[in-house]
């Protein structure tokens, strides 16, 4: 890499694959004939592959490659069988390394992590017994495309498959460990994935399966994670708080013996069939070399060093990073950071937008109006997800008998790129004019298949899906015969509907290229500033008179960065930015319109204002709750976190003169009424405790907790706190500490599980880690047509893959309104929301039409019943003709009008009565 921000020259090395991707048709004959079998790294060595291979079944592009470390021809100049058997002459043993040079403005690194190799830890027995596997290995074992086809079997007994009866998970292997490896950090994701694997293992097992998770602290701090853990516990997953001493395969081959020290300090022994090591995340050698080549600063663990206020920026200007490369994190956070990095990387090169855009050439749509139905049916196995339950060949044969069907095909993965290419080819060759895919859900895959139809010259609406996975094989797994019958029924219904499908057309509508951001905290300001820097005008609405939100009360991040100074600077930058129009003391009153064309009424200091905008970002934050227990509000010694932060700022003497300071964690969190984790409190308490020790080294500090959740690199301050002599005591929900007044102090009594006795402390300050709670967002959610979950957090479109989108188009979310989170995560999410908003704002028009209601003027009597039921105000009376008109840009395609119309003058295109009746009829005829 050379050059600098905005003007980099990058040279890339492309390693030879010895297969011409233009010629390879992925028929697989080469791999079938290849004599060299090697361990399959993708399946964690649990299975074998050939020296010529596809890395995994959904690889893009689906083309073979030769492993040049294993190939007999490349190493010994013998064999060459693949070259002889390849029907398309794609093998090229003379392939060489290619160099490419790119000229780019910014660079994003997202090279990910490698899983910790536990073979260096000899007490865990990995590599000494095949039934001791890593979590990655177990993930492959559960996968339909994995070494055992998704069946839960013991790797040691390949010849006579045997199900395990007892599985143990060992947490923190290669994490939170500075003695046996140098990974002092917490890998953040292992607790949750272990619980998920235990739940899935139970699900995969026909017989009762015993699952036990051996852990130190259960770190499931993400949104809805604690609920998942509670459900797992109710379903019989055992959670054992312990330190594991050793894992030893028994000599008589009857299992694997595990010795551990339980909560009370006693040594226990248990026998398991299978042991899963929950290995941590670390940065691989090649990623480190890449960072070194580029001159990027790394931290002590080889993660790329980033700051809380610039979570995706590296030490080299113009180079950004996201995902685990900058520290351990889960999928939602990685996805957020990815969007965030995209926004950050394009900020300085925004004027170049669209200068190199090429548009896709869509083939001319074929006129099929005068053709009889020629329906193609594609039945998917989805690996073994469908094929493992449903008799797919039987469904295929059945589909051939259905009226209108002229072509039927069975696929392993209908969604894979090569099947899509083939589908387009088949549509043209067979002259198909309608397509039915029997596979998964239209909610996830309809768009993909429709694109294929368009590329083959068909209208995208002459397509129907039969959901034989989510609604059939997955939910009727125990009755495969009935599931097969149901699959036939679903295919029959889809075919019956598709006979009646007609092409639908869409048109373009202009987009208002500006944004509305609701909420002027750190998240809202960051989102507004990101959009403004990308060139889009922003209206920022803040309910209070001042910007800054909760961050105004905070002191420092866990990395010791000064939040006060940052927020001050951020407010100044926002106020100075000429593209941001700021309304303080303002609220949203009403929202009209839809993605690309919103008209919002805000009330600022009693005056109504109309704002036109194309997108909206909701960043309304959350608040610290006021505890109703532990004498809060009745005794002056009892504070919350924000109260304590104020004491640090205004009354340092109170800290300096205190003898005993106690923190109680999870106050009002993780209980029956509020079963979620507030995520920031463990770190905040420990950080405050360390600060107290700095000011008053003689103070005794006690932290009474349930699980310490200092995830990721926050673990380092937990270690630091223990080194400083801060004492940690664990309590359970059914045995909470008891607080009573004692003059100027409060007395806290609690049981210590290690000493096995009751402890009492007289505290000068008792700091309660009170729950963070959602604001009352009911009016706002109604106005923007978005929803909240049962805890009051605004609900994203998909918790893993669309963490900043709402299900409603053009509306996005960020910050604590989504879930409690520390400032670095709020900033990353805010940039991500802006990034997602730009995907709409950067277009000058959007497509409307398709599945919308239309009116047949001959049948409409002008009664107006439909006008009242339309929730989107899309229908109006045409006074001239005395019938109704429908605005297809406002129509969301709900069909309420069609159901209301007494004369069936209104129809919902794509879901009309004839089509529904056909589905009902075919559902009932055997």
């Amino acid at each position: 890499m050379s050059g600098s921000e905005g003007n980099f020259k990058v040279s890339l090395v492309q390693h030879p694959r010895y297969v011409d991707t233009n010629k390879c048709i992925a028929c697989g004959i080469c791999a079938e004939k290849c004599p060299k079998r090697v361990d399959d790294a993708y399946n964690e060595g649990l299975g074998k592959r050939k020296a010529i291979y596809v890395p995994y079944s959904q690889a893009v592009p689906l083309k073979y490659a030769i492993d040049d470390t294993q190939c007999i021809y490349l190493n010994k100049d013998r064999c060459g069988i693949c070259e002889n058997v390849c029907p398309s002459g794609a093998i090229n043993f003379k392939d060489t390394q290619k160099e490419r040079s790119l000229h780019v403005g910014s660079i994003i690194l997202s090279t990910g992590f490698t899983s910790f190799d536990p073979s260096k830890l000899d007490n865990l027995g990995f590599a000494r017994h095949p039934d001791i596997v890593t979590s990655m290995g177990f993930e492959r074992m559960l996968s339909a495309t994995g070494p055992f086809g998704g069946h839960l079997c013991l790797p040691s007994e390949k010849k006579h498959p045997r199900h395990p009866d007892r599985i143990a998970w060992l947490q923190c292997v290669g994490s939170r460990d500075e003695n046996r490896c140098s990974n002092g950090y917490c890998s953040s994701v292992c607790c949750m994935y272990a619980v998920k694997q235990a739940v899935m293992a139970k699900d995969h097992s026909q017989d009762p399966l015993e699952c036990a998770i051996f852990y130190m602290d259960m770190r499931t701090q993400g949104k809805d994670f604690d609920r998942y853990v509670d459900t797992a516990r109710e379903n019989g997953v055992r959670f054992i708080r312990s330190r594991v001493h050793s894992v030893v395969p028994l000599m008589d081959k009857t299992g694997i013996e595990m010795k551990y020290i339980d909560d009370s300090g006693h040594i226990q022994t248990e026998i398991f069939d299978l042991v899963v090591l929950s290995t941590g995340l670390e940065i691989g050698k090649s990623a480190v070399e890449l960072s070194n080549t580029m001159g990027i600063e790394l931290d002590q663990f080889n993660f790329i060093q980033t700051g809380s206020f610039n979570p995706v920026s590296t030490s080299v200007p113009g180079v950004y990073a996201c995902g685990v490369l900058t520290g351990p994190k889960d999928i939602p956070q990685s996805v957020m950071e990815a969007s965030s990095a995209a926004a950050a990387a394009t900020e300085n090169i925004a004027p170049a937008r669209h200068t190199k855009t090429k548009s896709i050439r869509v083939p001319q749509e074929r006129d099929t109006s005068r053709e009889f139905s020629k329906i193609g049916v594609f039945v998917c196995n989805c690996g073994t997800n469908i094929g493992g339950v449903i008799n797919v060949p039987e469904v295929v044969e059945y589909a051939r008998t259905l009226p209108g069907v002229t072509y039927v095909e069975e696929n392993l993965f209908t969604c894979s790129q090569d099947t899509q290419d083939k589908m387009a080819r088949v549509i043209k060759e067979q002259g198909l004019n309608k397509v039915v895919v029997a596979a998964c859900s239209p909610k996830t895959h309809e768009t993909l298949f429709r694109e294929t139809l368009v590329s083959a010259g068909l209208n995208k609406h002459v397509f129907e899906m039969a959901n034989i996975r989510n609604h059939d094989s997955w939910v009727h797994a125990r009755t495969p015969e009935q599931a097969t019958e149901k699959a036939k029924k679903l295919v029959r219904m889809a075919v019956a509907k598709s006979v009646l499908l007609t092409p639908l057309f869409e048109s373009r509508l202009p987009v208002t290229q500006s944004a509305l951001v609701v909420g002027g905290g750190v998240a809202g300001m960051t989102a507004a500033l990101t959009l403004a820097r990308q060139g889009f005008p922003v209206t920022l609405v803040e309910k209070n008179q001042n910007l800054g939100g909760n961050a105004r009360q905070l002191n420092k991040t866990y990395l010791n960065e000064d939040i006060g100074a940052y927020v001050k600077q951020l407010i100044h930058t926002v106020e100075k930015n000429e593209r941001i129009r700021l309304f303080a003391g303002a609220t949203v009153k009403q929202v009209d319109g839809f993605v690309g064309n919103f008209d919002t009424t805000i009330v600022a200091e009693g005056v109504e204002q109309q704002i036109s905008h194309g997108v909206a970002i909701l960043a309304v934050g959350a608040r610290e709750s006021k505890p109703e227990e532990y004498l809060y509000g009745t005794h002056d010694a009892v504070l919350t976190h924000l109260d304590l932060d104020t004491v640090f700022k205004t009354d340092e003497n109170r800290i300096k003169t205190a003898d005993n300071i106690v923190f109680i964690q999870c106050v009002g969190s993780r209980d029956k009424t509020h079963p979620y984790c507030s995520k920031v409190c463990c770190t905040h308490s420990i950080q405050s405790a360390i600060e107290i020790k700095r000011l008053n080294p003689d103070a005794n500090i006690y932290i009474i907790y349930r699980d310490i959740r200092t995830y990721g690199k926050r673990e380092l301050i937990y270690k630091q706190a223990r080194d400083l002599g801060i004492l940690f005591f664990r309590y359970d929900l059914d045995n909470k500490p008891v607080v009573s007044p004692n003059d100027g102090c409060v007395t806290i009594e609690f049981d210590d599980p290690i000493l096995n006795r009751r402890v009492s402390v007289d505290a000068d300050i008792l700091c309660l880690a009170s729950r963070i709670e959602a604001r009352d967002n009911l009016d706002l959610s109604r106005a923007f047509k978005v929803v909240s979950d049962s805890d009051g957090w605004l609900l994203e479109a998909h918790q893993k893959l669309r963490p900043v989108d709402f299900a409603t188009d053009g509306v996005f979310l960020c910050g604590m309104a989504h879930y409690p989170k520390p400032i670095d995560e709020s900033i990353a999410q805010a940039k991500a929301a802006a990034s997602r908003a730009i995907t709409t704002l950067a277009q000058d028009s959007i497509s409307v039409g398709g599945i919308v209601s239309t009116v047949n003027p001959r049948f409409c009597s002008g009664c107006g019943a439909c006008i009242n039921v339309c929730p989107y105000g899309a229908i109006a009376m045409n006074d001239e003709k005395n019938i109704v008109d429908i605005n297809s840009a406002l129509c969301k395609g709900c069909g309420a009008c069609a159901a209301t119309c007494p004369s069936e003058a209104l129809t919902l295109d794509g879901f009309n009565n004839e089509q529904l009746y056909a589905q009902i009829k075919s559902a009932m005829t055997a």
Partner: protein
Amino acid sequence: MKTDIFEPKIIAFMCNWCTYGAADLAGVSRLQYPPNIIPVRVMCSASISPHHILRALQSHADGVLVGG
């Protein structure tokens, strides 16, 4: 002796935005239920009129579920 067990056929009109998604999630969560439910995807439960329900019953459905 009559051995046939009554197996009801239930037509379920499912709103694309909620019930259909929930039924998808039931699959993702591997919740097991009897296969008597026959799903029909609609864009909103409001698009179901008495005509559709009557048509289902006339076609010998034993029950109709409208989820929205």
